[in-house]
């Protein structure tokens, strides 16, 4: 930083600490909940200081939820989503910002609209697609008569099937379909000065070279931010994996198991409110995203890149 005025420093610290406390209170409470017994966690008023049951609760939650393989699975899925999302977002936004063609605004809007319909609303038909990802093409071929044509000409019956249930692909692909990354990259690419592009073109660089040599190195901090967000987003999925994966032993994800520890509100009573186990599981499940956040910090460095000329 440039100046080091003591007052400003103190003010900075004060504001950051205050913000930090506000933000971390719920997490602290979750931590405390994970250290209590069944009776303590259900009694009022709420405990503000931890008890001594952290280790037993963690062990029990881990065993109950069979977390081992699930951590690996979730890691694979989250990594897949990050790689897929960043790649897709980057190349799509690049095409939309730097290439001149009619309909690029329309395409951007078509991608953007995917943010506006929550998954819960479309989960039933999306499942049908996951059960057979080639359904759209099959249906189109049937409607347009292409299937009939192929059938009469060659005697082959067209029956496309690609079952994505209980697979990593089925877990990753639908999550990659949203627009946040593309929108972010669009914003970033729009800030690239014209001079930079002109300079690259005068050097004889084609679009792909420009992308690879100039844009991608410049977008490091964006990539770090997006990767962090996407990893956590994919890590915390519970609605879609619950539906798509019935082979929990091999493909189950962690947060689905977390929801299983929480008693269902709709039962007419009977479930033991094991909040202490749910909180212990929460702590465990939180660790990898936190680790990724810490890891990504290296990339959140002040850019030494000089974009002035």
């Amino acid at each position, binding site marked *: 930083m440039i100046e080091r005025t003591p007052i400003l420093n103190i003010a900075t610290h004060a504001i950051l600490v205050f913000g930090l406390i506000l933000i971390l209170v719920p997490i602290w409470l979750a931590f405390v909940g994970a250290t209590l017994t069944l009776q303590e966690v*259900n009694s009022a008023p709420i405990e503000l200081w931890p008890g001594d049951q952290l280790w037993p609760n963690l062990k029990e939650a881990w065993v109950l939820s069979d977390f081992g393989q699930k951590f690996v699975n979730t890691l694979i899925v989250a990594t897949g989503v990050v790689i897929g999302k960043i790649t897709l977002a980057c190349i799509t936004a690049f095409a939309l910002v730097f290439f001149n063609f009619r309909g690029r605004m329309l395409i951007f809007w078509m991608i953007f609209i995917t943010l506006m319909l929550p998954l819960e609303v479309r989960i039933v038909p999306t499942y*049908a697609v996951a059960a057979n990802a080639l359904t759209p093409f099959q249906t189109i071929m049937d409607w347009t008569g292409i299937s009939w044509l192929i059938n009469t000409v060659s005697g082959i019956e067209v029956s496309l099937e690609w079952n994505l249930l209980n697979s990593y692909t089925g877990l990753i692909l639908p999550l990659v379909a949203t627009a946040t990354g593309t929108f972010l990259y669009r914003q970033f690419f729009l800030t690239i000065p014209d001079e930079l592009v002109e300079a690259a073109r005068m050097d004889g660089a084609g679009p792909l070279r420009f992308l690879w040599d100039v844009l991608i190195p410049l977008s490091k901090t964006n990539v770090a931010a997006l990767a962090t967000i996407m990893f956590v987003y994919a890590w915390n999925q519970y609605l879609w994996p619950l539906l798509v994966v019935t082979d929990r032993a091999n493909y189950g994800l962690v947060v689905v198991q977390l929801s299983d520890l*929480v008693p*269902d509100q709709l039962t*007419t*009573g*009977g479930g033991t409110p094991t909040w202490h186990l749910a909180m212990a599981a929460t702590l465990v499940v939180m660790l990898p995203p936190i680790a990724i956040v810490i890891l990504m910090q290296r990339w959140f460095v002040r850019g030494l890149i000089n974009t002035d000329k």
Partner: protein
Amino acid sequence: MTQKLATAALVLAATAGSASAEKIKFEYWYGLTGDLGAVVAETCNRFNASQDQFEAVCVGQDGYEKAVQNTIAAFRAGKHPTLLQSFDAGTADLMLSGEFYPVTQLMADTGVTIDWADYFPGIANYYSSTSGEFFSMPWNSSTPVYYFNKDHFAKAGITEAPVTWEGMEAAFKALKASGQACSLAYAPSSWIDLEQFSMVHNIPVASNNNGYDGLDTELLYNTTLHVQHMENIQRWINEGYAMLRTQAAGKTSRDSFVEGECSVFFSSIADHNTIHKLKPAFGWDVQIIPTYEGVERHNTVVGGASLWVLSGKTDEEYKAAANYLAFLATKEEQQFLLENTGYIPVTKSTYDALLAEGFYAREPFINRDIAMKSLTWTEPTELTRGIRLGSMIQIRSEWTAEVEAALAGQKTMKEALDIAVSRGNEHLARFARTYAGKSFP
């Protein structure tokens, strides 16, 4: 009750051909979570270990509504399970779609013997057609009771837990006089305050015998004794005998009871097990829910969920599922369920056997069978068979929202119930339109 698993095995051996190690699998999607879900998973393990022909693949769906929703999604894609655990409110659509295999027929077709007459009528009627054919298999059944603090009652000089509302009010007054600030921890519950209340008083919730006789049903509960009951509850809260105890108000009624804050709360018998685990620091017990004087008491009905067999699966899967259901109905497996949860037995022979063994005479099961008394108080009448309404979830939530508003002083209870009824009727009309031309089987 006799389950002739041997017969089934014989039939299977004859038809299946090879006695290979390849087990016939079927999928079962259940909704219970937490420790109850663990019990379900354990029954599957026990079934798989008890024989080597079939394998139950049981998948927890993190809640009843998600179980139903996910099954619908899978059903539309042709990837659904054979067995589904569905809660009461989720079954009207399934029934009208006809996409299920009535278990009576399933057992007959697969040669598995079940003694249907062994089921308690109060339970059987809820799950069956008017001709007595079971649609789904009862399994985790419960009924409402109220829990009371014996120490508080003793201190107030109440010797017997009241079974009438007038007696309850007298008990409240006595409790207050003895220094108890809160007698009743009240949480609005459509299941208890509306549905079971109407059952036990033999009054209708809706026309068409609570929806059994047709889809052109209308709600009637704003014209029955229910109105007066809700007004009484409001009065008791205003007069300080009862307190609203929900999550939003600060603590649930169960927590309030367990802490010793309030002396009475209403809940399902399934909570009997939970409360034991929470170890309240006082003596407590359960009693059947009260009725108003001058009205003949009738039976209450079950809540909980039942197991539905869905259509569109192979014969082998149906055989496997039938065997699993028969397995669950044996005395040993019912006892396993009862020992690990607060649920109650569904068959008479199991109940009699447990009584004879002194099961209900030892902790923590003492007096849990009072729920059976409530369930079997009378033979079910046309109004106490149960409730078969579409859009049940919406009807319940309209009732809850309006009652909450009334209790918060925003409108009178009668207005609230009138609004809830009219909005509920709109839901019913849409439901009828959606299924135009169909009727409950």
